[in-house]
């Protein structure tokens, strides 16, 4: 409130940062504790693993972040990733592979496949955007509906079969990495994530589209009154999200060496959790790209912690669900207290 800013001490600043991001710090402490107790946790191989897992999840989280910042959501994210993986998988199968699904196709250039997959993602995103902005269906319901539609179509085109037999270049290129320092590599995926992170940071901070997005999240009526084309902006947000899921799906299929319609299931919740932990507020208008990165990283860290502790993997769902609810509850508290 006051114009004069008092010089805060480093300690009080640190306390403030910790109390603002309690989950991040709790999980970092947990990581340190687990690292001290369990062998191999602090290893280069584990770090490589963490980073390459984070890379793909980060792309999905970037996609969904625009929806969250405008007080919406996108529950179809995971299924869109699966759809893209299926399409990419089918098109990237080897020409001489016996189990080819679409035998009428020649062996395709994987660059061309990438373009096709991105166009498919753009299509699904556009559908979501139109339903949300033109038909005014609440995003939660709209994307819940498209989620099921997309999954259904994935099952149809994949014949509900796992897809394998990829061209070698597809898997080796995506899984490629640089260097080898005691088991630590820099996966190419990391560079892809970094490039998209920078692009999104640029869009969110330096472009009109980003400013409009934050304005709609901050106060959609005020944005419309100020001359922002809220309909067009929302369509673009959901379309951009679709493209990001498609990219993630394309990479994921190659990373896994196979694809199926069930791929990406539940990824929307992981992405939403990552965003929320990273400070994207469900009350709208708030969220940064570095925050999203930290949120996703921390969430992946949680999964690895559970894995190293030898927890029954089924409990992962329980813990992840709790963290999501906790993250949103803590975020909402910041705003309730101020009323």
């Amino acid at each position: 409130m006051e114009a004069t800013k008092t010089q805060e001490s480093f300690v009080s600043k640190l306390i403030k940062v910790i109390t603002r991001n309690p989950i991040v710090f709790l999980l970092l402490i947990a990581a340190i504790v687990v690292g001290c107790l369990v062998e191999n946790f602090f290893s280069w191989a584990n770090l490589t693993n963490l980073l390459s897992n984070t890379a793909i999840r980060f792309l999905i989280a970037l996609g969904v972040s625009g929806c969250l910042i405008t007080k919406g959501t996108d529950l179809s994210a995971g299924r869109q990733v699966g759809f893209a993986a299926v399409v990419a998988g089918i098109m990237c199968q080897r020409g001489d592979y016996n189990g080819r699904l679409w035998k009428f196709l020649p062996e395709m250039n994987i660059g061309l496949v990438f373009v096709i997959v991105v166009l498919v993602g753009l299509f699904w995103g556009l559908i979501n955007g139109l339903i949300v902005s033109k038909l005014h269906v609440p995003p939660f319901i709209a994307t819940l509906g498209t989620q099921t539609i997309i999954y259904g179509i994935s099952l149809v085109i994949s014949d509900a079969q796992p897809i394998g037999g990829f061209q070698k270049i597809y898997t080796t290129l995506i899984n490629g990495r640089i260097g080898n320092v005691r088991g630590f590599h820099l996966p190419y995926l990391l560079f892809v994530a970094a490039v998209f992170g920078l692009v999104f940071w640029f869009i969110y901070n330096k472009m009109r589209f980003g400013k409009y997005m934050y304005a709609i999240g901050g106060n959609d009526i005020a944005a419309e009154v100020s001359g922002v084309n809220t309909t067009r902006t929302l369509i673009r947000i959901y379309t951009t999200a679709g493209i990001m899921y498609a990219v993630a799906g394309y990479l994921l299929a190659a990373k896994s060496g196979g694809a199926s319609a069930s791929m990406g299931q539940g990824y929307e919740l992981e992405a939403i959790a990552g965003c929320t932990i990273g400070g994207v507020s469900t009350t709208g208008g708030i969220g940064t790209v570095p925050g999203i990165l930290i949120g996703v990283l921390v969430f992946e860290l949680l999964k690895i912690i559970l894995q190293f502790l030898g927890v029954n993997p089924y409990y992962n769902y329980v813990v992840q669900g709790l963290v999501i609810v906790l993250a949103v509850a803590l975020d909402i508290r910041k705003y309730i207290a101020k009323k």
Partner: protein
Amino acid sequence: MSEYVLEMTEVSKSFPGVKALDNVQLKLRPGKVHALMGENGAGKSTLMKCMFGIYKMDQGQILMDGQPVTIHDPMDALRKGIAMVHQELQPIPARTVGENIFLGRYPMKKALGFIPMVDHAKMYADTADLLKKVRMNFDPKQKVGELSVSQMQSVEIAKAVSANCRVLILDEPTSSLTANEVEALFRIIEDLKAEGVAIVYISHKMDEILRIGDEVTIMRDGRYIGTWDASELTTDKIITLMVGRELTNLYPKRENVPGEVVFEVKDFTSINPRSFRNVSFQLRRGEILGVGGLVGAQRTELMEGLFGIRSHTTGQIFYKGQEITITRPKDAIDQGIAMLTEDRRGSGIMGVLSVADNISISSLNKYLDHGYFINGKKVEQLVQDNVKKMNIKTPSSKTLIKSLSGGNQQKVLVGRWLANNPDVLILDEPTRGIDVGAKYEIYCIIADLAKEGKSIIMISSEMSELIGMSDRIMVMCDGRVTGFVEGSEATQENIMTYATQFE
């Protein structure tokens, strides 16, 4: 036994920066209609909210039957026999009449002797009785959403009656009723009077007051002016009592000279039959056109209609001699029209965003490099120019706008619009909720803009502000333009006369 069913004495209530009620009293006799009158902001609603337990009084007493009582909340008020029909009805449209009336106090019964469940038969039978009492004969099981406004109001009154109320507050009950519906309402009021219910009747309509009112209490600027027998009063006398005060605010000297007509509206009518209709007016270059009227006169709706926020059916808008079409705010903005909305928090600021983001959102196209990238330096320059020009007090351009004071927020919003360099500015209650010092600064900004040749439409509910700032005043009543007053000839009386010219 006291001669009054309810007395409020020496009631005071302050909000941050405003003394809303200052030593006010109100005494209600059983079986009488007590009219409560005053200008917008005189404190009528605040007083009623104190009585109904929505606000807590800073000072003062409420007596019922001569005994002091404390009213904690609206439920408590209902238990004590005080009921209120709000100006804006808030029914649950998808539920039935019976469910709306008995909401929160459904009659219960025990099924199989132990399972508590709602006794629907009793609820609907009671509802039918109540509806008969308010002379309404629609089905208790009808959905409230299917009723007309006056029927919904009857439901609200039935709800109040069902609580066996002894005091019934009617806040502007006829503001959205037709003449026939008003007659029906008056018959219900007569019935209630016969049963000994004391009625507080808040209305601006003089003829109604003089017709059904028994006593009239007049308030002004949060103070109690007096209570009279309705038979002693005339319309003129009420107006004089309501507005009779000196101008306390000072206004800057205006040096603008109105020129040629730049903006003209012809026969502009809302899509909503109860809103603005057949509105025509002209606006000159460098002119400040004040728009006066009572709450509910549809001034905001008219301006939002012109700006494309609301829809209209017929009407033409001419801008610099050309007819233009406005269907959304962007159309108006592209033409060079700006509108500062009334509800600063609801449709003005984006609270969680910075001052820079808020001030630049409407004019981002001007700060782009290569057509795509926002040049932060240009935005910063915009912020600094405005901070200097309008004396905006903000720690930095990155400060969140919600942490600024109301006056500074308003200046940022004015800056947002001026960044587009508009020729016509619509300002809806530009000084509402702003402290006195900042008000004067806003007046100076308005005067300067007019001097630069910008045309300004200013809606204001503050009489002195209208008179002090306008070259000409357009007065509205109930959706229609009822008259124009030259600024130099404007008085509170002649504005009020037009403002209360109901059909």
